[in-house]
């Protein structure tokens, strides 16, 4: 046993507030039961304990929600921007006041460590609402004409990796620009979206401006295909994104997609090595690697490959995997059994294809969905683990010799969401950034988010931008 063994430091589960045994939808300002009888369960992925049942939204539920949003659109879009801004500022403040509750609830439902929900998710959620609240009365200065109009009713489908943050990315700009929304959270993480519905009521948001409808992919398909929806915003897998794009092809509905990624994190021989190692760890082990812009392909210059690998393994040995509510946990639970199976399948393929697998010695809890932080070396570009998005705490390491080769390898993917560059040479950063086909390029850092900065992909990582001034465009009729 180590000399300095951290005692358990658990955040209180009770801080999550009351979790109801069953949930319906939030439509037209009220919590209502589904028209159907099918219910789904959401579990705590760290224990497999059922947290609550919630409704599987039917087509009739979707109709009701879209109709409520349509009805609310007339008066909401007619409000002066400053008035809409007031509601958003109020929501932002309530989120800050209730941030501990929301952070604990998010950790329980998603499996991610409380350290991250507390220090990353919740501050960013509030920041997004504050940021877009500020735009609400300044849209004429956004560069989209003197009086840019909202699109109408927005259907928004979000993933399970950052449930509340993705909700904020979707709802804040939509409301600021005068749209009304129907949002469907992921079927493994509906609880914080339903809690957000309470916050909408607490903020006195007019009825029907925000509607939350729960369910799995069937509900999502019904919502995104609904004929009275003017705009669809989807974040999730490329496969589902393609299906939505096919459905909407030839219709008047606007679409923005934020899909998968297989980002290259590129380390040059003149990088600040200690900080690069932190960036590699943050890039792939943050949020259990359930990050679309995760730095899942490490491209390291061959001359420092061994140095970087030694330092990386040493650093990985200090990662603390376990109870998401323990304040000292670095890596929590995998969100679902299905995702765990996907990670296991791809890592098995990595081994079968000849890559060298390594994980630090770490004891995983006996119940729940867990996966040890893993790094594959001797990966070649033809391996599945170098090409497919794993969406888990699994890093594939490849090498390069020259900057040109680094660019060629980094761009050699159907995706293009993000990339990272580690070098002390400023001119190389600028040269690389102009060559990389990725929506976000981080230099000497990774996984940094800010509401003022647009985010989105190239190629099969999607289209449209969220965040910043650019994020307004998706919700304006321009």
């Amino acid at each position, binding site marked *: 046993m180590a000399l300095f063994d951290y005692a358990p430091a658990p955040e209180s589960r009770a801080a999550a507030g009351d979790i109801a045994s069953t949930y319906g939808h939030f439509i037209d300002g009220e919590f209502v039961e589904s028209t159907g009888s099918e219910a789904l369960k959401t579990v705590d992925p760290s224990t497999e304990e059922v947290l609550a049942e919630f409704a599987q939204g039917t087509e009739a539920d979707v109709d009701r929600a879209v109709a409520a949003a349509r009805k609310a659109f007339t008066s909401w879009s007619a409000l002066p921007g400053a008035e809409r801004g007031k509601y958003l500022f109020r929501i932002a403040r309530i989120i800050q006041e209730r941030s501990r509750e929301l952070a604990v609830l998010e950790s329980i439902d998603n499996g991610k460590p409380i350290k991250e929900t507390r220090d990353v998710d919740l501050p960013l959620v509030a920041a997004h609402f504050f940021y877009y609240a500020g735009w609400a009365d300044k849209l004429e200065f956004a560069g989209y004409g003197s009086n840019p109009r909202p699109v109408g009713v927005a259907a928004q489908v979000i993933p399970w990796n950052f449930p509340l943050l993705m909700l904020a990315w979707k709802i804040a700009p939509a409301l600021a620009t005068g749209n009304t929304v129907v949002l469907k959270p992921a079927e493994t993480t509906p609880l914080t979206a339903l809690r957000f519905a309470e916050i909408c009521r607490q903020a006195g948001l007019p009825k029907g401006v925000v509607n939350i409808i729960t369910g799995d992919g069937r509900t999502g398909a019904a919502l995104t295909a609904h004929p009275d929806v003017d705009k669809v915003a989807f974040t999730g897998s490329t496969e589902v994104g393609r299906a939505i794009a096919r459905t909407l092809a030839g219709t008047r509905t606007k679409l923005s997609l934020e899909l998968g990624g297989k980002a290259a994190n590129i380390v040059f021989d003149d990088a600040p090595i200690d900080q690069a190692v932190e960036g590699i760890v943050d890039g792939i082990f943050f949020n259990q690697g359930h990050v679309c812009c995760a730095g899942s392909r490490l491209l390291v210059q061959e001359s*420092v490959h061994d140095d970087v690998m030694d330092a990386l393994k040493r650093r990985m040995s200090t990662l603390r995997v376990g109870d998401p509510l323990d304040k000292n946990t670095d890596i929590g639970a995998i969100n679902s059994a299905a995702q765990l199976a996907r990670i296991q399948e791809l890592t098995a393929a990595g081994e079968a294809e000849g890559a060298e697998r390594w994980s630090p010695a770490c004891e995983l809890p006996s119940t729940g969905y867990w996966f040890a932080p893993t790094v594959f070396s001797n990966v070649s570009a033809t391996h599945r683990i170098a090409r497919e998005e794993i969406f888990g705490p699994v890093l594939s390491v490849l090498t390069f010799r020259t900057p040109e080769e680094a660019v060629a390898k980094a761009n050699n993917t159907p995706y293009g969401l993000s990339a990272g560059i580690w070098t002390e040479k400023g001119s190389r950063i600028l040269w690389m950034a102009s060559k990389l086909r990725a929506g976000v390029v981080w230099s000497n850092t990774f996984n940094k988010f800010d509401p003022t900065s647009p985010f989105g992909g190239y190629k099969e990582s999607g289209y449209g931008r969220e965040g910043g001034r650019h994020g307004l465009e998706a919700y304006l009729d321009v």
Partner: protein
Amino acid sequence: MTERYACRYAALVSMSSSLATSGLADVASSEASLRRFLHGLPGIDAVGLQARAAGLGTRSIKTTAKAYAIDLAISMIDLTTLEGADTPGKVRSLCQKARNPDPGNPDVPHTAAVCVYPDMVPIAKEALGGAPINVAAVATAFPSGRAGLPVKLADTAEAVAAGADEVDMVIDRGAFLSGRYLEIYELIAEIKKACERPDGTAAHLKVIFETGELVTYDNIRRASWLAMLAGADFIKTSTGKVAVNATPANTLVLMEAVRDFRNATGVQVGVKPAGGIRTTKDAMKYLVMVNEILGDDWLSPDWFRFGASSLLNDLLMQRQKLASGRYSGPDYVTVD
């Protein structure tokens, strides 16, 4: 900086498992080669370094872990008084506090050392009697280091002759900032010699960088390697006499340096942050860094020290709180 990277440099320096080998002369054989070596160390990204230090600062240390850390921190303190107004009475009082920090509570560990000016060494030695507490003396024209080599050597010799167990020297920051690395290397090596006693033993040498005056993290990394190459037993952030003293980030640079140096040479060097560490919460953050950057090998007073004065009382109050469940207040610890 990584193990292999350091090893590669070690080969360049042709340093074997001991610092005493002649191979050291290679890297310090000329100003040019020493500069090439120090400037060849990997750079430090300031934002990333500070983020790492801040991240480790969020560790939550509770119950048994806190009790362990409080006692460990007490045992790592170099209880310090470095004032113009220091008197024999003040130093004696400090020594009593070092021996028995919490009267009526004999299970509280004693501190690692007391740290005083050289002229106070005999008084401290006498006051400590046979207690296993070292006397550390600041020397070499502390705190500015602005004196000629003979003065610095005499200052050190006086302290060692008076019985100092440890010598805390300052480097010449002016020489460092103007790039005269070899001059500092030679200064440290000379002081190291002056630490030797007639019986063949030697006082432990701590080298103070005054990181607040070196300013950049790259400079602090270079100073760390420079001091270790020249034979430092400990490397220390600050004198406590300037605006910016020990911070988690600059201490993290020292920790990375001793980690890499041991990987490269097999020689283990200690770390001492000094100045500005006043609360138990602060001390915990440093111990978490020792734990996660350096590990068990450095978790002892032999390899990690706090240069502090007011920290001890806060640790004692937190210790009492942990034992009794309530806060006692500053009247229940002694003012020395």
